[in-house]
């Protein structure tokens, strides 16, 4: 092979390697693009964090469907050994679709320091998530609890009559997360107590 062909080939090798490197960078970007794509996907299908409504639903005059009764269950949990007490005052209630109801959660900060908590709701089954509307909820804003403070927090909600026929039981689950700004947190430092 002549010197010239050699150089030609080496040049085209580098050119191809360059193109492939662009592909590598693009795929790295694609990995990050999956983050917003995932939210879009969740929004379309009504699952995942994209569907978590942290704003109050519009008050509407729903037609109350007396002929149906739906059981709504409430659960409460704490994230990552958060040193709080958190429970639903009512475990289950029976509602008619279209009829607004109020129930109460109780939370208490067990630490001797002020903490901020943020509750994230989750609704199962997935198909019911777009039909259970929270008209008033402690989850819409971050909650400041002084050291040792406890309080009752109401949730006003309505199950709309559009709930699919076969769903007769809906679970509304809240998880409290520690949202105290870093450095001021009195929460258990999970990272250093792992092992």
């Amino acid at each position, binding site marked *: 092979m002549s010197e010239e062909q050699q150089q030609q080939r080496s040049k085209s*090798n580098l050119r191809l390697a360059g193109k*492939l490197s662009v592909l*590598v960078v693009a795929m*790295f970007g694609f*990995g990050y693009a*999956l983050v917003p794509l995932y939210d879009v996907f969740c929004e379309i299908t009504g699952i995942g964090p994209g569907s978590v409504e942290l704003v109050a639903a519009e008050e509407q005059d729903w037609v109350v469907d007396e002929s149906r009764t739906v059981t709504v269950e409430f659960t409460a949990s704490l994230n990552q050994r958060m040193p709080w007490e958190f429970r639903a005052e009512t475990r289950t209630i029976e509602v008619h679709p279209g009829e607004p109801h109020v129930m109460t959660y109780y939370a208490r900060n067990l630490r001797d320091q002020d903490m901020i908590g943020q509750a994230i709701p989750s609704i199962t089954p997935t198909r019911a998530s777009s039909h259970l509307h929270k008209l008033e909820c402690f989850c819409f804003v971050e909650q400041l609890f002084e050291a040792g403070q406890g309080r009752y927090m109401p949730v006003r909600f309505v199950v709309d009559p559009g709930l699919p026929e076969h769903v007769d039981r809906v679970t509304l689950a809240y998880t409290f997360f520690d949202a105290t700004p870093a450095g001021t947190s009195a929460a258990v430092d*999970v990272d250093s107590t792992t*092992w």
Partner: protein
Amino acid sequence: MAYSATADEHHDAHHDGPAPGLMRWVTTTNHKDLGTLYLWFSLIMFFVGGSMALVIRAELFQPGLSLVQPEFFNQMTTMHALIMIFGAVMPAFVGLANWLLPMMIGAPDMALPRVNNWGFWILPFAFTLLLSTLFMPGGAPALGWTMYPPLVLQTGEAFPFLILSIHLMGISSIMGAINIVATILNMRAPGMTLMKMPLFVWSWLITAYLLIAVMPVLAGAVTMLFTDKFFGTAFFSAAGGGDPVLFQHIFWFFGHPEVYILILPAFGIISHIIPAFCRKPLFGKASMVYAMAAIAFLSFIVWAHHMFTVGMPLAAALFFMFATMLIAVPTGVKIFNWLATMWRSAMTFETPMLFALGFVFMFTIGGLSGLMLAIVPADFQYHDSYFVVAHFHYVLVPGSVFAIMAGVYYWLPKWTGVMYSEVLGKLHFWLTTIFVNLTFFPMHFIGLAGMPRRIPDYALQFTTFNQMATVGAIGFGLSQLIFLYIVIRSVSRAGEKASDRVWEGSEGLEFEVPSPAPYHTFTTPPAVR
């Protein structure tokens, strides 16, 4: 450039050997040297990862906590997986590619020899970082190689080392893949059209594109973990508006093509060996190429079958189930083409052929349990059980690892110039095959009966099958010492001299150069008929 030899230099190629001394191995850009380095590295990692598997099996010999603490057990399962995938199987395939691709396509060397050197020498550093975590406070990563958050974020001091070593392994694989694509597309001898290329070359062309497409996605995923842990981002933290399930989607978008990265080159190797010992051309070569391309395409749209149990819409579950089952079609094409090649042929059963036949038989068992796992309602039962462990070990050990060993036995005489001991080779095959089945077959049953994976203890009724598996694993591990002995013997040139063709039925340009293959081959391109 390393392939500066021109046509008029051809006559003195014989005294153009490697530089003397150990620095040769550090500075080399020769594809054969680098292939050798990759293969030795892979063999060392195979033994390191294998010892970890033996710790796992020893702990599981009897119920209750007997030998190691649960934390250490979890570190062993995690490190075993990372080392076997990224340290043993992938470098072995890259090593085979380095040794063979240039010779198979009639090129003097890889397209980018310096990149090749760099790609290899990153690996020892990556694995030193990873293995060093075993000695850190808090120990090595212990939450499984899949690194699911939020648990992975609780890893101790090992966490940044884990992320950095994954990045390094990724960079090494990507550089290797770019080099392989450039070599295959640009360096072929005149007349070597794409469809004339041997199947190992084809399998690597497709694998290299998979690597280029998905290793950066893994790099992105672990970078997100890293910034979540240290820089306050919340990609996967529900408290900050992220979602841990998102990690699983990104990880398996990488992870599923990755499992084909671990098997496609094996398909290539088997497609060389079966025709050679059947003394017949491969049945349906073009369909083999299309089947591999189809598998590669499908691998991008089936990832969520690893995570059916996270909860997904019925339509999505059905889509991923059917797409997964569809992979059985091109895979079946390959299996039946191999069988058709054997049909009414004059077969002989030298060691490479035994390993190839073992591959076809046992890989199919692994494929079948994979189909069972693809069925959504069944998967809810099998998920995270020993059935899954049995499935992926059947496709990886008697699958990928058998193919690598078959390839080593097949080409070792070409590399070293001497035949290995056929008696020892056959002994190695039979012991390995018996023990590999003794190890992994009972896992199907205990998995179906409900034994979960990654747990150092189990219910009493699983004891017998676990003891069988442990005995099998120890036997399997010891049998590999025979392999080590065979390789060392060949490398030290002990044994009968191999002919240039090595095997009666061997085909391909690599068998047209002398045995052992000279340091530089095809400095003038060969004529391709």
